[in-house]
């Protein structure tokens, strides 16, 4: 299998790390890549050939810095960059109560051990298993108990067009009890770049902690992007994710969220706007309510045209003793022409008897009466349609707690 490449990585001589890699390898070799019969991938399955033999690049980062020129954000942020899958700059001025270090450093120091590879079972996530085989690039971010990180942490991933790379990145993000932080992941690339981005974030939200997670993806037309956000939330904690998916050949954002203790909650909202032929965008969630009074909300809205395909798979699991849990889910999509495709699969598994759950899905076209009303005021049809699409997606943007970040993404969306 060409995705498994015989290369030397840093730390093969560290038994802890080589053990993790070995364990991941066993899982990956056993399960292989998803195929058309893999239920979790049935709408977004792709062939290994589609990746066109990406290579793992184990050379040090080579970049003159042009990948992050002109990165003016309209808000203050702590900035971290990945270039071609490699962590780029390491002179972060982490504020008091915050640790930011490379995965390698964290493995060397040992403080990542209670988190790394602890939040999911690799047998369930084939690309996360592959990610584990090449554990090397990544970040360890720890926000200490009671620390409020005022500035968001902005992580930018940029890919060049020079080589077809397989970029495996593992970030471990820990918000200890009563900590509060905002993470932004921004994925971008040179227009003609070809690469496979395989990212796994392991996120640990402590008691009464709050983590907001914004993902803004606007990449290359030929890129593949597979991401797993594996999240655990403890008592009274809250994890809120927002995905904005623009250009990318294939993307899959999977949220695996376990609400471990009483009162833990999660929100997963998202928007996608697909207009490239054969573009696929998959947002899959699996939210597991494992304790009483846990709650979750999901609102995903998308727009697709020109043979693009949008996929939403939303699973809500409510364990037998998760009484008075609340889980709500809604996916709505607009198909702007006859060639677009939307696949939606809501799944509710409810084992407790005193819960509130809902799910809904709809798809349709723009409202012709609304278009005519705008035309009758002088607004051309194309402009009217664009205004209506933006308005349709606005409902999701409006839910974001940090409107500075939300507006910044919306302006580029």
């Amino acid at each position, binding site marked *: 299998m060409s995705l498994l490449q015989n290369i030397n990585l840093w730390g093969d001589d560290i038994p802890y790390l080589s053990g993790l890699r070995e364990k991941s390898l066993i899982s990956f070799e056993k399960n292989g890549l998803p195929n058309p019969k893999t239920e979790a991938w049935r709408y977004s399955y792709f062939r290994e050939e589609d990746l066109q033999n990406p290579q793992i690049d184990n050379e040090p980062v080579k970049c003159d810095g042009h990948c992050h020129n002109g990165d003016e954000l309209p808000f203050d942020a702590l900035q971290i960059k990945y270039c071609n899958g490699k962590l780029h700059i390491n002179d972060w001025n982490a504020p008091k109560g915050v640790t930011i270090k490379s995965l390698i450093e964290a493995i060397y120091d040992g403080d990542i051990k209670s988190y790394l590879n602890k939040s999911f079972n690799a047998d369930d996530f084939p690309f996360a298993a592959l990610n584990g085989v090449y554990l090397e690039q990544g970040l360890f971010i720890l926000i200490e108990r009671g620390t409020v990180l005022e500035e968001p942490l902005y992580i930018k991933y940029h890919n060049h067009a020079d080589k077809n790379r397989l970029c495996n990145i593992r970030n471990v993000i820990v918000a200890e009890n009563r900590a509060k932080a905002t993470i932004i992941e921004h994925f971008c690339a040179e227009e003609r770049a070809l690469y496979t981005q395989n990212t796994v974030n392991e996120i640990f939200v402590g008691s009464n902690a709050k983590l907001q997670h914004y993902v803004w993806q606007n990449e290359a037309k030929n890129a593949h992007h597979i991401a797993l956000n594996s999240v655990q939330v403890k008592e009274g904690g809250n994890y809120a994710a927002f995905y904005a998916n623009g250009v990318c050949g294939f993307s899959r954002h999977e949220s695996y969220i376990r609400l471990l203790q009483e009162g833990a909650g999660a929100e997963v909202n998202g928007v996608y706007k697909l207009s490239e032929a054969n573009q696929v965008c998959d947002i899959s969630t699996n939210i597991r309510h494992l304790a009483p009074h846990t709650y979750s909300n999901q609102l995903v809205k998308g727009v697709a045209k020109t043979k693009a395909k949008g996929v939403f798979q939303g699973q809500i699991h409510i364990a037998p003793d998760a009484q008075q849990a609340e889980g709500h889910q809604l996916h709505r999509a607009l198909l702007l022409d006859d060639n677009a495709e939307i696949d939606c699969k809501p799944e509710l598994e409810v084992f407790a008897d005193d819960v509130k759950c809902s799910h809904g899905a709809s798809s349709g076209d723009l409202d012709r009466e609304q278009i005519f009303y705008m035309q*009758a005021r*002088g607004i051309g*049809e194309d402009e009217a349609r664009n205004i209506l699409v933006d308005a349709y997606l606005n409902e999701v943007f409006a839910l974001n707690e940090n409107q500075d970040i939300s507006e910044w993404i919306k302006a580029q969306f």
Partner: protein
Amino acid sequence: MSDFLLQIKNLHAGITDDKKEIIKGLSLDIKAGEVHAIMGPNGAGKSTLSYVLTGKSDYEVTAGDIIFNGKNLLELSPSERASEGLFLSMQYPVAIPGVTTNVFLKHAINAQRKYKGLPELDAAEFLKLIRGAAKEFDVSSEMLKREINVGFSGGEKKRLEILQLSLLQPSLAILDEADSGLDIDALRTVAEGVNKWHNQNNSLLIITHHLDLLNYIRPDFVHIYADGHIVKSGSMELAEDLEANGYRNYLEE
């Protein structure tokens, strides 16, 4: 060059893909400065006329001509017709969730300015314009911030239509059942707004099935519309006769 603002010549029209004709040979001439009222029973297809004039795609013209401001109206798209100076105040203005009234108005004004080759208004210029007009037409700034027509009362919707009339300054306004859903105070506000806008250079076509609005906006001509065409034209006295005696005398057996 004729001095007509709008000329409708022997118009035949119906719903697209439906063979049934709704408008059957309607002719009407409107000069600048005139107020015309078209009255007819419910279901006679009065709204069809307003949609055919504004170019709604559900309707199809099968025969006849419409000349507006010297241009062949039927060759223009709905948005071009609006930018040429045709305005339709709708009976049921459409709610557009997610688009605030302010944003909608800015798009509309700038789209028409662009069509006319004028520079678009920036945020400050727009605000100045809108604030003045909103005050005049009793539209609160809170209303401007709300999503357009979403949860608006009947009166609020119609006031907003009139605000748009005043901002867009069309040469011909069609008021389609502008009085429906209005109490007497709201009706007066709407009529006052229309009268403020109206002058000798612009014209009005009022489509209604009763007299109420015409008591506030006096028409120069009243046309009785039935079975797809105008069966009788006259002055305000005709409208008063209709109110007293009904349409019976004018409907064909």
